[in-house]
């Protein structure tokens, strides 16, 4: 199990009480973890002994019972770091925020999704309350900000007034609701440096309910049927061709591996996820079918 991923994200369910127009997962079907999947996840977690588990959605605080069922099954030490990515809807007051955070059997940190789009649903007070509740209870706190244009970064000024916490920035990828609403980060030109890069998340894993494990958190897994990219068991995914090539190959090497002769790049392919989607679509077109699952 050398070089195995040490972090695993678990998408507990797709239900959310916000309807953000840039959401990458909102168009997926309304499913959540079944009891069978919970048992499978507990077994995989105990086998691979991840150092960090991140629960995401949807909105994970709508699934606290399901998360606690998984946490109750963890049998190794040290206990992994447990984090959630939340929209912060419950933090109407600091006490209300703390009450929800304390419902988790274990919770070491909170990532709050907050940007121009979430701002339409979430009051600034919720952010302050959640930050205070995390500080008071010794939990880490950071904000994830998705941007369509660099001018969206102006919101950082407001965040910096609220506290000294890390802010993560990511461009919008055109999947899910973002694709439907024609939202994506605009690049002024194609950046050929992307060809020298590998998938930035190739050492991470996510479990998608009703589907399985994958390293892809973008187009291939969330934008289609996941065939060949998502596997019902973790062992199956780690043994797959998809996992192997994403771990090892740069995008330039993928072009050579797929025997793509004349790719045509546009500015949007500067984003690794868009480049990846493009190359796999060319390969599928060449094969006249998607690559078959290896397990």
């Amino acid at each position, binding site marked *: 199990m050398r070089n195995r991923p040490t*972090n695993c*994200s678990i*998408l507990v369910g797709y239900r959310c009480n916000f309807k953000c127009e840039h959401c*990458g*997962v909102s168009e997926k079907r309304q499913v959540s973890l079944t009891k069978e999947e919970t048992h499978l996840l507990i077994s995989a977690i105990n086998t691979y002994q991840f150092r*960090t588990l*991140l629960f*995401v959605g949807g909105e994970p605080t709508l699934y606290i019972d399901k998360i606690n069922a998984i946490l109750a099954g963890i049998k190794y030490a040290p206990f992994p*770091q447990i*984090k959630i*990515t939340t929209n912060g809807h419950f933090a109407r007051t600091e006490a209300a925020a703390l009450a929800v955070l304390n419902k988790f059997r274990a919770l070491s*940190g909170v*990532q709050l*999704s907050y940007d121009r789009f979430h701002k339409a649903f979430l009051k600034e007070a919720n952010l302050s309350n959640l930050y205070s509740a995390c500080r008071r209870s010794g939990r*880490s706190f*950071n904000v*994830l*900000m*998705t*941007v369509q244009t*660099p*001018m969206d*970064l*102006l919101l*950082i*000024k407001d965040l*910096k007034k609220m506290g*000294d*916490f*890390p*802010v*993560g*920035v*990511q*461009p919008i990828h055109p999947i899910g609701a973002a694709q439907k609403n024609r939202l994506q*980060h605009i*690049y*002024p*030109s194609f*950046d050929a*440096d992307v060809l020298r890069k590998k998938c*930035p*998340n190739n050492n*991470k894993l*996510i479990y998608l309910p009703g589907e399985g494990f994958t390293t892809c*958190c*973008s187009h291939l897994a969330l934008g289609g049927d996941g065939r060949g990219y998502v596997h019902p068991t973790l062992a199956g995914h780690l043994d797959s061709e998809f996992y192997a090539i994403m771990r090892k190959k740069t995008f330039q090497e993928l072009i050579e591996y797929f025997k793509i002769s004349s790719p045509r790049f546009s500015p949007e392919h*500067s984003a690794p996820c868009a480049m990846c989607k493009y190359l796999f679509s060319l390969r599928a077109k060449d094969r006249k079918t998607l690559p078959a699952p290896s397990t």
Partner: protein
Amino acid sequence: MTNKDKVIAAFLVSVGIFSATQAVQYIQTLSIGERAKLFSVAKISDTGVLVCESPVFDSAGDTKKVG
């Protein structure tokens, strides 16, 4: 390109949304007012702003810190 433009460009590259070339191209499309706004954010964001690849992965645990 002014020193302020260079600060803005470095900021946009550091948060991972543009390459250096793209940042320069983008800044050239901005008005003086827009440049001033972005410069003010860049000044206060020299620490604690991270490159994040996905909201479904842990961005605070293993991404590089800028600044």
